[in-house]
């Protein structure tokens, strides 16, 4: 048996090993090491207005706020978007955005088209800030309290279910804590 005819088999076995490992992992539930830690510091230009700066201090201005990572190229963000709009319209909670690895005109057009639920979106063109925040998939949403502590992280689209079962009770709890 010539060795080179075994190459496909070996490659395939490696792939299978990878999948076995992959099955044990759930892509949508992974604890973040950042939970209950202060937000990673950043300072970025605003998406619409390059002169304006959005920084991590901005997130501590409210009792509690959402920090949503999004991009115009991300399909799941479209899915999530109507719900964010609903939240913003109802004035439930202030929402900040991090526009992740995107192009400025694309992102602005996207918000113009679908509506802008964000008080401000930080423009993270190279994804450096996203890296600090441990972003591994878009969209992600962080719940941040007034001390700048990350209280929760939602991976994947923010659904009505997640909102009602987890995030809203948490927000109520934070609001109660802070009186």
């Amino acid at each position, binding site marked *: *048996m010539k060795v080179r005819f075994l190459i496909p088999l070996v490659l395939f*076995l490696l792939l*299978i090993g990878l999948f076995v*490992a992959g*099955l044990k992992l759930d*892509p949508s539930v992974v604890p973040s090491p950042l939970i209950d830690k202060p937000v990673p510091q950043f300072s970025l230009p605003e998406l619409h207005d390059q002169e304006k700066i959005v920084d991590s201090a901005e997130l501590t201005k409210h009792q509690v706020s959402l920090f949503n990572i999004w991009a115009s190229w991300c399909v799941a963000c479209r*899915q999530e978007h109507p719900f964010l709009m609903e939240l913003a319209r109802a004035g439930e909670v202030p929402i900040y955005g991090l526009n992740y690895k995107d192009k400025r005109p694309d992102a602005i057009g996207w918000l113009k088209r679908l509506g802008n639920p964000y008080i401000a979106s930080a423009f993270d063109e190279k994804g450096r800030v996203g890296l600090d925040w441990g972003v591994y998939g878009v969209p992600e949403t962080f719940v941040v309290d007034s001390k700048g502590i990350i209280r929760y992280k939602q991976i994947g689209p923010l659904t009505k279910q997640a909102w009602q079962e987890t995030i809203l009770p948490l927000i109520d709890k934070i609001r109660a804590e802070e009186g």
Partner: protein
Amino acid sequence: MLPELGNFALILAMTIALAQGIVPLVGAARGIPGWVAFARPAAWVQFLLLIISFSILTYAFVVNDFSVAYVANHSNSALPLMYRISAVWGGHEGSLLLWVMLMAGWSTAVGLFSKRLPPEMVARVLAVMGLLGVGFASFVVFTSNPFDRYFPAPMDGRDLNPMLQDFGLIVHPPMLYMGYVGFSVAFAFAIAALLGGRLDAAWARWSRPWTIVAWLFLTLGISLGSWWAYYELGWGGWWFWDPVENASFLPWLVGTALMHSLAVSEKRSTFKGWTVLLAIFAFSLCLLGTFLVRSGVLTSVHAFASDPTRGVYVLLLLGIVVGVSLVIYAWRAPQVKSAGNFALLSRETFLLGNNVLLVVATATILIGTIYPLILDALDLGKISVGPPYFNAVFVPLMIPLVIALGIGPLSRWKQDSFERLGKILRFALLISLILGVLWPWMLFGQLDFMVIVGATISIWLVCSILLDLFYRSRHKASLWKGLTSQSLSYYGMSMAHLGVAVTVIGITFSSYYSLEKDLRMAPGDQLELGGYLFHFDGVRDNHGPNYTATEGVVTVTKNGEPVATLYSQKRNYTVQQMPMTEAGIDPGLFRDLYIAMGEPLGDDGWAMRIYYKPFIRWIWLGSLFMVFGGILAASDRRYRLMEKRKAGLNTDAKLAVQES
């Protein structure tokens, strides 16, 4: 009672598949004619049983039998009949049942159309298909049974996902599955040939029509999916590089490579080991796609409800099928001897180039798709790979492919010369360089480097196809005679290649020249876009059987002449409380006018999205050309001739017997 019968038929089909997988294989190895002959009837009975099982499930949907859990989860009494029927494959369990049934259907077809093949070969092919059938049928029976009951039965069902309530989604999955499952035939032929030790030109000739048919179904399935995404999702996009889309595109790329490499194996008796490997890969990627979509290892928009036990099962199936076949390959392929040599400039080289580019494209897309999983498994963090990566790696591979595609069919087997090819093609080069700039510039008045590239290579391809046809036909008594003497498979090939040019034009022009406008419109407002005047007449209420809708009406005029009236709806499906946007589209060969309603903005104002999309239809028109080319090639008379020749042989033999 009926659903239990359906379940019983399914289990029976599984056991028959098991017998079909073992008996003929042993028969072929030991030379027992009765056992060899078992394969065909087994395939028929298995297919019949699965038709019964599938029909019973369909019937449960038609009569709204919500005691069947699968029906209750995917249907509703208010759902129109058409969608109740298509809901049969609207979820995981039912779509797998469809898969198993189609696979048995392909086995039956192989049994019917393979009378000219040696009986042992047919027996081995059907046995491999039978074993695959066992794998999938047991997957349905043990992990995803669509006949499970709810007790007590719910009053009404949870309704079909509104996204799936659409014509495109009725036909898209069956076509896609026909393609996936069809590649199991090419796979079975490859394994049978390896087992029987006859990896020769005859094997390639037998596999070819099956591979082409599987490929054309897959082409149709993928383009239907893309067309559906375009008009249903309301984003104006037609391809998103989503893991599920990639899962269907990977086998298509390898399947395309396989078709071409089979041609070399048949005509020149080289590349055989490679061709067998491609046949194994094409089907393995179909299985891999199933695993990725149904196990939940990757997040995707249209992933099925995922379940770890299902993931383990598909992975097991994938491991056994691909693992065993690669072991057989490693054991048998070294004995294959490749005959012919070929020069650096020859048709073999071009087909090799085709294979290399397509396989590299497959590998890069596969890596991009599973890269998040690799990093995750190695604990290196989590990432998501988006369209920027795929466009950046895929487009540069396709450009040389299209350029080589223009030369390949003109080149000669074994050896060719630059002088000969240059003489024929300099004309095509000249025309394409001129028109590649001039044509888009005259149409749109502005240029982009990538537009020039896209237009140039497409025109280059069209010119070379026409030149090829001319050079092949001109030696005959008259040009007409020359044209009619070309084979169907030649016309099929040219048609499919022409389809590539058409699709490339569609992609290029629609990507670079689309205009889009997002604005607030109140009744009476107007907008000019791409020379068209869009007038918002207002909104009205509308309703369907299971949804209520607000419908916006926009009339379009050009230079005062009416062009179209577009209706876009915002629907709310009452059962699942899910909003859906229905785009209003005026399709045209050279442009689509596309509107989608957004949110109400108060004071009668609506957010509106208006698109002008030039040449977008060409994307799907090109894929229809490819499908049609596939049909022509698969119905070439030499495949039918062999049938006749064999029949003739039989009568000769009978005569001989009578005479003696």
